[in-house]
């Protein structure tokens, strides 16, 4: 028996869609706001996300999953977004969860991929009272955006048989005020520049409890993950998973290794 309520919250002009998961037993009075990944990664990873929410609820946590503006069933347009709008949405979701569930003594954050980077960003700007779980945070935004643009080149190749515009030209088009359509997402220069500027290498946070779970083909920690975990005083776990945030041959219903790392850490935190 699941207690899950789909709802709209936030600004009347631009409402956010969310699903509120409430534990039916062993309520720990601690909540989590979930911060989803970027563009189509959100859809590929969605079921893993839902499964992880249900795992936390089973443990007694309250969870609010929500769609950022311009995503899923929320209002707004993707083309209008930038890092500030993502961060502001997360803050609105935290407030909503606090206000609607007054039993909650603390609210933490869970983020995945770029959602993890934004969760960390929020943790820098305000004290997050609960645990912060970061799955595979995007540390270098510039590199991530370049990879995103590469999908545009692949589409050109598939459709026209040649690359008509390279990455530099695509950026130039955005600088002229045009959108660059990547996998159906209209990317504008504001969003492109602000995500490109995301760089977690120099992040320092003094307060909060953080878990970083690095995802890779081996369990060997990468230097950038170690550096980040040291700079924010986070526990680092390294797990092996397939890159289920994009199209792969397997159907990922849940990410057991990621989930177990987070559950164990939360267990040790209690």
């Amino acid at each position, binding site marked *: 028996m699941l207690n*899950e309520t789909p709802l709209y919250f936030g600004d009347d002009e631009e409402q956010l869609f969310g699903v509120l998961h409430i534990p039916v037993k062993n309520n720990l009075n601690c909540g989590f706001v979930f911060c989803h990944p970027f563009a189509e990664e959100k859809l590929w990873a969605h079921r893993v996300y839902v499964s992880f929410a249900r795992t936390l609820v089973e443990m007694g946590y309250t969870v609010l999953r929500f769609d950022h503006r311009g995503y899923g*069933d929320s209002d707004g347009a993707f083309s209008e977004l930038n890092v500030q709008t993502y961060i502001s949405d997360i803050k609105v979701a935290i407030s909503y969860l606090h206000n609607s569930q007054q039993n909650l003594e603390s609210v933490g954050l869970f983020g995945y991929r770029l959602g993890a980077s934004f969760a960390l960003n929020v943790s820098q700007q305000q004290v997050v009272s609960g645990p912060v779980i970061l799955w595979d945070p995007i540390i270098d935004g510039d590199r991530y955006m370049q990879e995103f643009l590469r999908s545009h080149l692949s589409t050109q190749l598939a459709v026209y048989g040649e690359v008509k515009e390279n990455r530099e030209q695509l950026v130039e088009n955005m600088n002229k005020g045009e959108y660059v*359509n990547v*996998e159906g*997402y209209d990317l504008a220069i504001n969003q492109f520049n602000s995500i490109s500027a995301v760089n977690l290498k120099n992040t320092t946070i003094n307060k909060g409890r953080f878990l970083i779970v690095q995802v890779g083909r081996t369990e060997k920690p990468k230097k950038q993950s170690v550096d980040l975990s040291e700079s924010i005083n986070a526990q680092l776990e390294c797990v092996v998973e397939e890159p289920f945030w994009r199209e792969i041959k397997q159907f990922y219903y849940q990410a057991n290794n990621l989930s177990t790392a987070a559950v164990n850490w939360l267990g040790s935190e209690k």
Partner: protein
Amino acid sequence: MKKTPVTFKNKNGLTLHGILEQPVNDLDKSTAILFLSPGIKMRVAPHQLYNKMSRHFVGLGYTVLRFDFYGLGDSEGEVTEMMLADLYRSIQEGRYVDDTLSAIEWLSKEVNKNKFLLTGLCGGAITGLLSAEKDDRINGLLGLGIPVILDGSKVDAAKNLTAGHMNRLQKGYVRKIFDPKSWMRLLTFQSDYRIIFNILKKNIRKRLVSPEATASADINRVDINDNTNPLFAPAVFKMLERDAKINFIFSGSDRLDWEYEEKFVSLYKNKLNQYEGEALSVCTIDDANHILSLPKWQNEMIEISTSWLSKNFNDNQV
């Protein structure tokens, strides 16, 4: 547009999640439109394609329900398939027909509609077609990139390529001859050798067979029995025979277009003639990819859909 998050039960008691979207103006068409999820991409579809379509259709006066099948999106239930291709196959064999019928039942009670049009991309389209066999209240199907074949992790896709798909792949390989990265892929065993082998085989066969024999034989013929979905043709004709309307829209760069032509139309040409243009409309959007990622392709698809809707489903609720 009025948007309401809704939940309802499927036949097995699992809660399905959806968004009900209704016009706020005086327009209220008697037909409701259900969007059926494509593959695992839930009720919004890739890059929110369904939201974009829905906004337009609600603007025309239609009530729309977009919802998630069990085990996908936000809905309850589990999917146990480990491979995507096997999940796709189960969808192509009708896995979500019952969920669709549950949604229709719920809609008919909640919004007092008794005519339904189903729409969807890929897996959503085939689910719509197979559902239409089971409920006569479904009087229209707007199918985007509908698959005619059955996927599956054990199906050898290379063996079942259509001639159109092979020609396109061949052009791609020819272009890559001077690309060092492609040679690297080939030499490090990352290329799909079965596809390359099949293309070479086809070309060698073409050269060996005399022009006379080639003229008399259909050189584009592929073994249509291998992976064609046996449920597809009967479901199409069942809809057409009861005068329900079908609009198939394909994407010009998508293998599904060639598969529809070579594994369905070429076999049923005569039978299809009597329905074409009236009960059955088929269009292809030039160059478009499977997910209709560019706005110009989306606009063309919405334009075609709108004109088909206004021709066939324009009556207002009494």
